[in-house]
Every structure is written in structure tokens, then in C-alpha cells.
């Protein structure tokens, strides 16, 4: 299913005359002219103004009265305001804001406030405020790199609610054993859905909240991991749209860090079936750093995963997107930085076949990124140890490109690489250089044989077709 109503071009946001000369304008320019977009689905229009009874300040009542007043304030803060309507209920909005501020201070500073009956009220207030259906994205083709995100209109309140909740979770008096009755699977599920918020400020708060919950509620850990799995799988295979991937990966980075050894099968499956396929997504650039960090964390935990990981990267290697290819090369270098020589040997052939293709890419940034490997001392030492395997794989590409590449900087880099190889293993180098021509000829011959074969097969098929239509074939 696809929500395409909003896709209808941008013909709508006209700013006449300016665009006259050029029908195209950069999206960012166009956006800049608009007011910063705000949106909120939190509120369904309501005609009556909201009236809240002004309560005294917490600091103005006696210590015994405070807990009850605290509860009352929590209940009051469940009232929601319409922030799309900027002029309505101004006074009450301000009142709720100051109440929330008070609550933040109270949970930070007070002692002995957290009675059993406070927990459900806190969770209820937080749920009322933060759990909501996120509004539709402003445009269907929201490009997080280019477009300004739509900001949550009710942020003045929402921010304080998040802050309050984080302080609550971090409070010394906070007892997970009591809270787990209220902060349960359903709560976590709704929390995870909010990571799709377009507002980066909200995602940042959510990250802290989820991290705290993961840390304090051991019983929810497996559930949280499973639900993140589902979000990622849905993102990769169904929608390609989820705003909070980077934040979730950041949390996972520290979760992976804490995995016990030996790694459970569940965690390995997560690496191979969920994290690796994330590389296929179009918007990889938005979370690649966090993703690569997670991958490297896994490999540092368990080096035997190197082979499946590199095989996975090679399987998903970008075919048409050079920018992504550069990212892959960057990640591969991070992996090579920590690779064990015994693992390197297992994967080197496949790996260097790909690197040979990158080195000869007509896109100079791809070629350049691959050639930078030769500036990495550790990688160089691995190549040197295995030059008898790697040199024959690389040679043809390097040799051809050294003469053909359009970009002089690339030619210069290639020259250096060839020189390095020559110094490493001059006998093999000379042999490969001598055989270069005859090898190419052999390849061409093989190509021709293949063509001949297919032609023969097609002729055969054609002849059959004729026979069939003539009805010559005996039954």
C-alpha cells in the first residue's frame, strides 16, 4: 500500500517571478522560503477553551502535603493542548508548562516522594502526553538530507514531559521492580513507534529513555531487541521509511558492547539477517556511521564472524550508487583495521576481486577511496603477507587503469600501488606483466566461445520452433 496523495509535485509551493529564469529550484531554497513546518497529530479539534484550576506551588506547601499535590499536578498535566492553534489557551498552556517545570525539579531534588501509588500516575501522565499517532510526513519524498524536518508543534510541553520522565527513571529512588507493572511490553512498543518522529529533538530524548529502560528492566531486554528487529526488517523489506534508525542503532551499539561471550545464536542471527541487510536501504548515509560501529563491535567480540560479514557486504555491494560504494569501502576499511590475519586469509580472494573492481571504477571517488587502503599500514602488511594471492587478482585492473583512467590523480595513485607491488614481489610482478597480453587474449577467446555457444543454442531453439509449427515432430 502506498500513500501517494501528497506526492503530487511541488508545483504547488509557488513563489512567482523568482523562478522565472530557471524552472528548477533547489529544494532547500524553496523550503527556506516557507515557514518552518510544524505539525502535530496529538490533538483533535475541540471548541471549548480549557480551564485548569490553579494549584499552589509544591514548595509552598508542607512536606506532608507535597505527595498529594504532586499526584494532583500529575493528573492535571494529562490535559492536552492544541499547539497548531497558536493563539488558543495561552494562559493555560503557560500554566501547564510551569507545572511541568516544577515536576521536573521535584523529581530531581526531593527525597522520599516515590510511593507505590506514584508509579501508575507518572506512567499515565507520560503516556497521555507522548503516545500519539505521528502526523503524516509533509511530503512523500521527504529527503532527510535535503529537507527540513517537520517539528513537533507541542514541543514546549513535550520536551518537559520527556525531561521529567528521564529524571524519574534516573532518580535514586526509582525501583524497577515496582515500575515493571506499568512500564511493560505495551509501553515499550508504543515508545519504539515514536522513534519514527521526524523531530530530531524528540528522537534524542527517546534514545535516552529507551537506553534507561533497557538498562533497568532486565525482563524487557529480549522484547526490546525483538521489536527493534521487527522495525528494522519492516524498514528494509517493506517501507524503507523510518526516521529513528540511527538512534536505535546507537542504542544497539552499546547493547552489543555488553553481550556476553560466546555470542548467542540469536545475536548472530541479528547481525547476519538484520544488520547486514540494512546496508541495502537507499537512505544508508543517514545511519551508516552507527551501523558500521555496530558491525565492528560484533567483530571485536567474535572475530569468527568476519567471514559472514564480509560475504554479506559483498552480496549487498552497491551496483549503481557510487556514494554508497564509498561508504561501503569506508566500512570495509574499519573492518580490516580490526581483522585477524587468520580471518583475512579466508576472505581475501573474494574481497580483493571487489576491491579490484572498485579501483577501476570510472567514478574517481570510488577508485580513490579504494586506493587509500594502500596508505593503511596494517592493511599494507596484510597485503604484503599475501601478495602471491592478491597481486594476481589486482594486477589486471591496476595495469589497465594505469593507462586509461581519465583522472590524473587516480593514475598517480595507481602508479604508487603498482610500485608498491613491484617492490613486494618483483618476480611475480614481472611474470604478470609479461603475461598480461596473452591473458587478455585468452579472455577474449572465452567470451567469443560463450557467444558462439549461445548462438548455437538459440539456433537450435529456432529450428525446433519451425519443426513444431510444421508439425513434423512425431508423437
Amino acid at each position, binding site marked *: 500500500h502506498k500513500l501517494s496523495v501528497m506526492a503530487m509535485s511541488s508545483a504547488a509551493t509557488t513563489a512567482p517571478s523568482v523562478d522565472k529564469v530557471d524552472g528548477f529550484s533547489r529544494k532547500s531554497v524553496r523550503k527556506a522560503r516557507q515557514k518552518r513546518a510544524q505539525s502535530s497529530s496529538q490533538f483533535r479539534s475541540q471548541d471549548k477553551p480549557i480551564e485548569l484550576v490553579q494549584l499552589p506551588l509544591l514548595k509552598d506547601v508542607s512536606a506532608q502535603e507535597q505527595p498529594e499535590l504532586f499526584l494532583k499536578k500529575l493528573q492535571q498535566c494529562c490535559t492536552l493542548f492544541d499547539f497548531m492553534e497558536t493563539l488558543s489557551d495561552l494562559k493555560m498552556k503557560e500554566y501547564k508548562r510551569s507545572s511541568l517545570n516544577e515536576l521536573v525539579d521535584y523529581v530531581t531534588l526531593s527525597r522520599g516522594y516515590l510511593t507505590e501509588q506514584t508509579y501508575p500516575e507518572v506512567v499515565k501522565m507520560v503516556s497521555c502526553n507522548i503516545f500519539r*499517532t505521528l502526523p503524516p510526513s509533509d511530503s512523500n519524498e521527504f529527503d532527510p538530507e535535503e529537507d527540513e524536518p517537520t517539528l513537533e508543534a507541542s514541543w514546549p510541553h513535550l520536551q518537559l514531559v520527556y525531561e521529567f520522565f528521564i529524571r524519574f527513571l534516573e532518580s535514586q529512588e526509582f525501583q524497577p521492580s515496582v515500575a515493571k507493572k506499568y512500564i511493560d511490553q505495551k509501553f515499550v512498543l508504543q515508545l519504539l513507534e515514536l522513534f519514527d518522529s521526524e523531530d530530531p529533538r524528540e528522537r534524542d530524548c527517546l534514545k535516552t529513555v529507551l537506553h534507561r529502560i533497557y538498562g533497568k528492566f532486565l525482563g524487557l531486554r529480549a522484547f526490546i531487541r525483538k521489536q527493534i528487529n521487527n522495525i528494522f526488517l519492516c524498514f528494509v523489506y517493506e517501507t524503507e521509511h523510518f526516521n529513528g534508525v540511527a538512534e536505535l542503532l546507537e542504542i544497539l551499539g552499546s547493547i552489543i558492547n555488553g553481550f556476553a561471550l560466546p555470542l548467542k545464536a540469536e545475536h548472530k542471527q541479528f547481525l547476519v539477517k538484520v544488520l547486514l541487510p540494512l546496508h541495502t536501504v537507499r537512505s544508508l548515509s543517514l545511519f551508516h556511521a552507527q551501523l558500521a560501529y555496530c558491525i565492528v563491535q560484533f567483530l571485536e567480540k567474535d572475530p569468527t564472524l568476519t567471514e559472514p560479514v564480509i560475504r554479506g557486504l559483498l552480496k549487498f555491494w552497491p551496483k549503481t550508487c557510487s556514494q554508497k560504494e564509498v561508504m561501503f569501502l569506508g566500512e570495509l576499511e574499519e573492518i580490516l583495521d580490526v581483522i585477524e590475519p587468520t580471518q583475512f586469509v579466508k576472505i581475501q580472494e573474494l574481497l580483493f576481486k571487489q576491491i579490484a573492481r572498485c579501483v577501476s571504477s570510472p567514478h574517481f571517488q570510488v577508485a580513490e577511496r579504494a586506493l587509500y587502503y594502500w596508505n593503511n599500514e596494517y592493511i599494507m602488511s596484510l597485503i604484503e603477507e599475501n601478495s602471491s594471492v592478491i597481486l594476481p587478482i589486482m594486477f589486471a585492473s591496476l595495469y589497465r587503469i594505469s593507462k586509461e583512467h581519465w583522472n590524473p590523480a587516480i593514475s598517480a595513485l595507481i602508479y604508487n600501488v603498482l610500485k608498491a607491488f613491484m617492490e613486494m614481489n618483483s618476480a611475480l610482478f614481472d611474470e604478470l606483466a609479461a603475461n598480461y597480453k596473452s591473458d587478455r587474449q585468452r579472455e577474449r577467446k572465452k567470451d567469443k566461445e560463450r557467444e558462439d555457444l549461445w548462438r548455437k543454442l538459440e539456433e537450435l531453439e529456432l529450428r525446433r520452433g519451425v519443426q513444431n509449427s510444421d508439425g513434423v515432430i512425431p508423437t
Partner: protein
Amino acid sequence: ASGAQGPALVEGVGLGMAGADSDDSLYPIAVLIDELRNEDVQLRLNSIKKLSTIALALGVERTRTELLPFLTDTIYDEDEVLLALAEQLGNFTMLVGGPEYVHCLLPPLESLATVEETVVRDKAVESLRKISHEHSPVDLEVHFEPLVKRLASGDWFTSRTSACGLFSVCYPRVSSTVKAEIRQHFRTLCSDDTPMVRRAAASKLGEFAKVLELEYVKSDIISLFTALASDEQDSVRLLAVEAGVSIATLLPQEDLETLVMPTLRQAAEDKSWRVRYMVADKFSDLQKAVGPEITKNDLVPAFQNLLKDCEAEVRAAAANKVKEFCENLPEDSRETIIMTHILPCVKELVSDTNQHVKSALASVIMGLSTILGKDNTVEHLLPLFLAQLKDECPEVRLNIISNLDCVNEVIGIRQLSQSLLPAIVELAEDAKWRVRLAIIEYMPLLAGQLGVEFFDEKLNSLCMAWLVDHVYAIREAATCNLMKLVEKFGAEWAQNTIVPKVLGMANDPNYLHRMTTLFCINALSEVCGQEITTKHMLPVVFKMSNDQVANVRFNVAKSLQKIGPVLDSNCLQTEVKPVLEKLASDQDMDVKYFAQEAISVLSLA
């Protein structure tokens, strides 16, 4: 074609391939294996795409015993190769020996149906569905249904997702015991742990309901539908809406109220806008499925709410359905319902804050005039049309203009012409070239409806101005527009109004404008006929053959080639030929090329 081809094909291998070496019949499979292992994906892909050729060469028996096992064992490749394989296997029945052997194709397709990548899996399911029909009832129970069961109880979500699409194809042709098992498996998947599988099940629920006996629709399907429609994930709930529509069509009228309406009502008020959007999007289908009574009592208020929804996406989806919904209202109360319930909402939408909502409305609102008739249109709709014609958003205006024909049938377009003209002029000069392009496309229609006088007076100058637009696509469309206008108004009109202006541009200092003259001549020569072409256009073309810009000169050659067929042979020989010959010896390579091409196409050599 039939299974009888089989043996003959095997014999054919000998004929075709053997030659000197009798082992040549082994050649294809060896080659395929070699190619499948080739490092180059493109070569692997090529060989998979020619799989049928290979199977033909191998013959049915070796395809079954050697090729298919090989393919089943080597499924590990890149998704692109797997996709091609999944597609090929759907058309392989004859190549393995006909329906009798079709079950041989199941093992590789089963593996493909568990692959991670969605497109591959979907293709495998599509092929499995296709070949399921070629199974005999016995084979279906012995081979196909066990496969569905295995997939349905697979470990990883991918195989369970694939299973969802296979239940409905085997259900109708198996015994009642197996049917009961299938229903049980489907039930299990509807409450699967992963939302991906529940989504797959929800999206196949309607299809599955269609093949079930009515008693099971009532007992099984309704409870599954109710459960999915209140799933915790809105992505599941919204798929249930679509299923609800299909289910409603299957049930007798008296059961609708108790079995599906409570759930559908709840969906129309779901807290997630995505679900409400889905209800709005499927509204016409829903309306047809539940019939006139429920429409009157339930759907009318629900539709009003959707038109007033707090999310613009939902309002836009509902606005899109306004015309269809009104059209399908029961005839006896149609006008009353529209006038009292729908039109007030529509009026509000005309001044909606969201341009997509207004634009969705503008694309259908004109259709209401045929339903409401002349008087209502003039009194109630016309003010709305006029308001939308003045909307700040060009897309809204454009949508109104593009549907003028509906109103034209009811009240004539003249009533609108006052407001129409400023709207057209503004769109014609819009900063976005795509908007300008869109309005050009409606010019011939407008010209036809407004008549030649109105056109000459008000619109002609616009059409000529587009010819010198700075965007090529606009100039090209303007050229084509002229041709359509001439088709409408005739050659005489062309000669008096547009040909002189077009030819005048031949002297323009800008070579792009001079070329536009040539492009216009290309488009107009045929509709204007031989006389105008020879007498007025051709001399200009000849003159331009001396242009100092090579692009103009080679376009002269192209134009001559294009208009040649309109000219008489004498003119071609005595006038066109010398000019082309001169161009054929031009200094510029391209001019030479196109001149020579023209000479050979017009057979002037």
C-alpha cells in the same frame, strides 16, 4: 503445445548439438553450471534468463533429473539472479514434461519463497500460484499442500509470509480434511508473533475469504477480521479494512450489520490517520459492498467525518471520492443526501488550508454537475468552480480546467469564461514549466469548447508566446498544440492566423526561435496540405538552408525529409533535390549526414 513434445525434443538435441562429438548433449548443462558460477553477475543473469533454452536442449527428463536438482542446490546467489530464476520457473511446466511432472518445480520455488528479499519471494509465490493450477487434485494434496504447510510453520518470518499467499490457490481443490488444516494454518498466521506475517495474512484475508464456504466465512473469517482490525499496529489494521470490503461482498445483506459493520465503523474512527485514510481510499468499494440502506444510515455520516478529518491526508483521500460516492448513492434519495449532507462539507473543502485537499477536490468536483443537473449546478456548484478557478495553488486551477468537459455538457462553458480566462492566462505564465506544459495540453479542448472567435481574441497570443518559451519542452508542446488547433479550425484558419507568425520567426536573431519555425513546419505541413506547404512554407525552409548556424541547416534537411511526402514529385525533383544536394556537401558533418539521409529516404539519389 503439449506434453507430447517431450521425447521429440530430446531427439532434437542430437540433431542440433551432436555434430562430431556425441558427448555434446552434455554441453548445455556443463555450460550453464559454468556460467552460473561465473564471477560476473551479468553473465550469471544472462544464463538464468535463457534457462528455458537450456531446458529445451536438455529435454524434459534431464531437466527434471539434473537441471532442477542443480538449481535447487545452488540457490545462494544475488537477488537479481534469484528473481530471474523465480520468474522462469513459473513458466517451466512444459519443459519438465507437462502437468504430470509439474511438482518437480516445487523444491527450488520453495527455497526461493523463503529468501529474504521481498521481490524475489513475491515472484516465487507468484510462480507457485501459477503452477498450482497445473497440479492435479491428487498432486495438490501430495506435493503442493505439504509445501504450504512447511512454509507456514517455518522458523524465519519470510517463509510464513510467503505461505499466506498460497492458501487460497489450493483450498478449493482439496479434500475437506485438508481444508480444515489449511484454515487452521491461516488462523495461526493471523496471530503470528511478527507484524510482517500478520500484515501478509491481513492482506490475503479477503482473497482467502472468497474461496471459503459461506459458513466458514461467518465462523472463521469474521473473527480473524475483527482481531486483525484491532491489531496493535496500525499497518495491520489498515490492511484489514481492505479485507473487510471483500468480506462484505460475500455476506448476505442481513448479516452485514452484525458481522462487519461494527468493525468498519470503528476503522472509520481509528486513532491512526493511516487507517482512516485507508477507509477513505476504499470508500467507493465499501459503498458498493454494503448496499444502499447501510450507505444511507452509516456511510453518509462516516463520509462527512472523513471529509472533516483533522489530517489533510485523510481529507484529500475522501475528497477524491466525492464524485464516485455521490454517483453511487441510491437514486431515490441521492439529490437530498448530496444537497443536505455532502455539499456543505464540499463547500468547506474549497477553502481548505491544505492545497492537496483542494486539488483532490478540484479533480472531481466538476463531475457533480452531471449528477445534480443544470439548476443546482448554476446555483450551488458554479460559485465553487469559480472560487477554485481563482485558487492560489496552480494545481487546483489546473484540475478545474482539465475537467471542464463535464460542466460543458450540463451548463455550457460560457458561464465560466469570465473567470476562466484570467485563470488560463495566469497558468500560461506560471513560473513552473510543468504547470505551463499542463495548461498547453488542455488548449485544444478549450479551443473546441470556446469556439474560434473567443480563441482568436483571447488565447491565440498565448499559444504563440509559448513558441518562444525558454524551456524546450514548452516550445515542443506549443508546436504540437498548433497542429491540434489546425485540426480543429482548419487549414484556412491556419493560413490566416498562425502560419504568418510562425514563418516570421524564421528571421529571428535567436537560432532557437528559427529552429522553432522548422519544428512548426514539420508539425503543420500535413494538416495544412500541399498548397500551403508548397507555396508558403517551402520557400522559407529553402531560405534557411543558408543559415549560418549548422543546427538550423541540418534541421532544414530533417524538415525536408519530413515534409517531402506532402509535396508533389515535380517539386521534389526540381526544388528540394538541389537544396539537399547542396547541404550534402556542407562543411558540417551533421548537416551532411542528415541531408544524405533525406535524399535516400525521399529516393532522390
